[in-house]
């Protein structure tokens, strides 16, 4: 099975590390089907014990934001530093928060 570009379809790989709570994107592999994608992800991305669980997703299934809309999507958040927890001073009397 080949795509029109002559390459096998691309899959995005997500790994959950030994002490991690959620899967994180680590890269991509080429594979003809899901089973091969998991096998290839195992061979390419877990050689040094990086993961205990693998997810693969067809790259074509990923919907991305438009780089051209970067301004309207992300810039409004830049000047709202009060949304960061470090913005507030914690009174000395508070032992735990």
């Amino acid at each position, binding site marked *: 099975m080949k795509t029109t570009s002559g390459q096998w379809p691309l899959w995005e790989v997500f790994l959950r590390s030994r002490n991690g709570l959620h899967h994180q994107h680590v890269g991509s592999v080429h594979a*003809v089907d899901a089973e091969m994608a998991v*096998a290839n992800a195992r*061979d*390419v991305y877990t050689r040094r014990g990086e993961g205990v669980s693998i997810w693969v997703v067809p790259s074509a299934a990923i919907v991305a934001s438009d780089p051209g809309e970067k301004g309207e999507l992300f810039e409004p958040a830049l000047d709202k530093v009060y949304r960061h927890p470090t913005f507030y001073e914690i009174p000395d009397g508070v032992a735990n928060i």
Partner: protein
Amino acid sequence: MVSPTSEQLLTYADGALILSHRLSEWMSNAPTMEEDIALGNIALDLLGQARGLLQHLGNEDELAYFREPQEFRNPLLCELPNGDYAHAMIRQLFADAWFAEVWPQLAADGTVDIDVRGVAEKAVKENAYHWRHSSAWVVRLGDGTDESHRRTQDALDAIWPYRGEVASDQWYARVEPVLAQATLTTPGRDAWIQRGSADGWHTEHLGYLLAEMQSLARAHPGATW
């Protein structure tokens, strides 16, 4: 159960070592980058298994780098040249099915040295993955396109005579269903079998393989990284 002899352990060690070297020859030449890394992983697993046994049997470097071809005890299967990917995967399937019998037996054998059992226990899991990899590829290639089917059947016909040193009832029971699923025709259990390496006979290919594998250690004895 009769404890394996040193000669048998050497057969397993040499089989893993020589096959590991053959797989390493694929580096940068496999059909895809992902397969390149997969074969490298398998080669390293096999090398680790070989080292574990060779360290038990003597000085691993002496054994790996300073023996002559006729002193090697690997099944001839393991030294066969790479050929195309169908040849590589059929050879791997045969070897993986052999080790699938070897490692659990060693791991469960209380008369075997504790270090050897340790090697075997680790190898059981490694082998399970190798088998998954090779059997999936044999089915994919055999039951694939007309060309991949033809090439895989050619590979099976060419390598089948070399099953003699690794085949048992268990081995056939493992291999035959995969070949059937791959829509390949086996020449049959009674088909001709190539003479084995037990008395020091090898194919012409082993000499060339060793010339390359041993050249560095022989040119620079005792060299370290």
